[in-house]
């Protein structure tokens, strides 16, 4: 029994989307809470002996697999460098700049109704937008998209962004069983 239950407890913790109570594990695996806790201790001993980079942490009334603190900086830096992903907020700002460029921060913030400094800074750093000048009246920076922006989104040029008509057609996606008029654009 003991041999089988150990990897089972590990499996439950490995796959858990939140901390799991020892009692719940015990009930599910038909054993006692104290045995579960003992096996968790054994697992932690194994991990320490084998030089694993993680451990089982008692937290929020339950148990959860955690990376050891000493690897925190290494890991966070690695994922920060991961530039393949953007936040929704960044995409929103890119969308606004792409359509309205050249555009000032004020206009962006008026459309988005949220402050945009941090994200604009990140987008500049990522090379997805650039400053193309200053607005005449207010002396504020004007932002525009870059070549890298086009590459990132697989566009040949800005004219490939959907037009207003295309945007509207897209909203009707599930109604296109019969095109309203027979036009060549149907099915593109």
């Amino acid at each position, binding site marked *: 029994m003991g041999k089988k239950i150990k990897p089972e407890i590990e499996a439950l913790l490995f796959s858990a989307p939140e901390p799991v109570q020892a009692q719940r594990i015990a009930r599910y695996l038909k054993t006692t809470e104290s045995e579960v806790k003992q096996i968790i201790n054994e697992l932690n001993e194994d991990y320490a002996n084998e030089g694993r980079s993680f451990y089982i942490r008692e937290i929020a009334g339950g148990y959860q697999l955690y*990376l050891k603190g000493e690897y925190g900086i290494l890991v966070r830096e690695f994922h920060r460098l991961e530039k393949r992903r953007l936040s929704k907020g960044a995409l929103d700002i890119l969308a606004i700049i792409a359509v309205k460029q050249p555009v000032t921060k004020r206009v962006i913030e008026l459309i988005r109704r949220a402050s945009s400094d941090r994200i604009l800074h990140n987008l500049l750093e990522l090379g997805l937008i650039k400053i193309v000048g200053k607005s005449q009246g207010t002396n504020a920076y004007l932002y525009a998209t870059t070549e890298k922006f086009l590459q990132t989104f697989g566009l040949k040029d800005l004219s490939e962004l959907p037009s207003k008509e295309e945007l509207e057609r897209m909203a009707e996606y599930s109604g296109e069983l019969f095109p309203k008029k027979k036009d060549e654009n149907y099915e593109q």
Partner: protein
Amino acid sequence: MPAKVEEKRFNIQIEDFEGPMELLYYLVRKEEYDIYDLPVAELVDQYMKYIKMMEELELELVGDYLVMAATLLELKARYLLPREPHPDTTEQPTAQQELASMIIEYKKYHALAHKLETRMIQEELNYQRGEFPELEIKEKMVEPNLWELIKSIRKYFSSTPEFPVKIRAEIDLSERLTEILFYLRERKKAKFRELISQRSELQFLVVTFIALLELSRMKKVRLLQRRNFSPIWVFLIE
């Protein structure tokens, strides 16, 4: 509530065939037709029987099946109608070949889809780590692709409502059938083009096509086309 029960039944029907090609392929299998020697007329008739049933059930998806019906009827017409020998020798695929290659092309991908489904089911038992507390990700991160950008653009620059527009079949098959019969009783014959000239919607064209097929099956009309792409004539049988 009986209406709800009915709805459920329809859904089951829809799931049985995800599209006209699957239905067509199912019919080939069911009747054990030889793919390289398809009885085109028979297969098309079988298909029509199914979609008539679907239409009676007022299935929403019937639209795609109707468009396919139009294609099939055109193939059937080419297959059946007497044709004068064509002087130029450039070989065009016969209706039979065209139908076969349509089915084979679809079947290739459908077979692959079946493999994918098996893999997906196997994959359901493979789990990754459940949570990543150490990353402290607060914001949802997405891959920067055009679709995500389009969604953002739409959020700020499109006033179109998000809900889908539904368009339902509004032309009644049996009504159209009667109309055609009345029209032919006066004139004895008509070009197909005449019969579809009143309205330009695709749906009208398709329903007219199906009505003609029905009339021909009932031996009330005879269809004739002299050669590929020449006008199709409809004669009343008395």
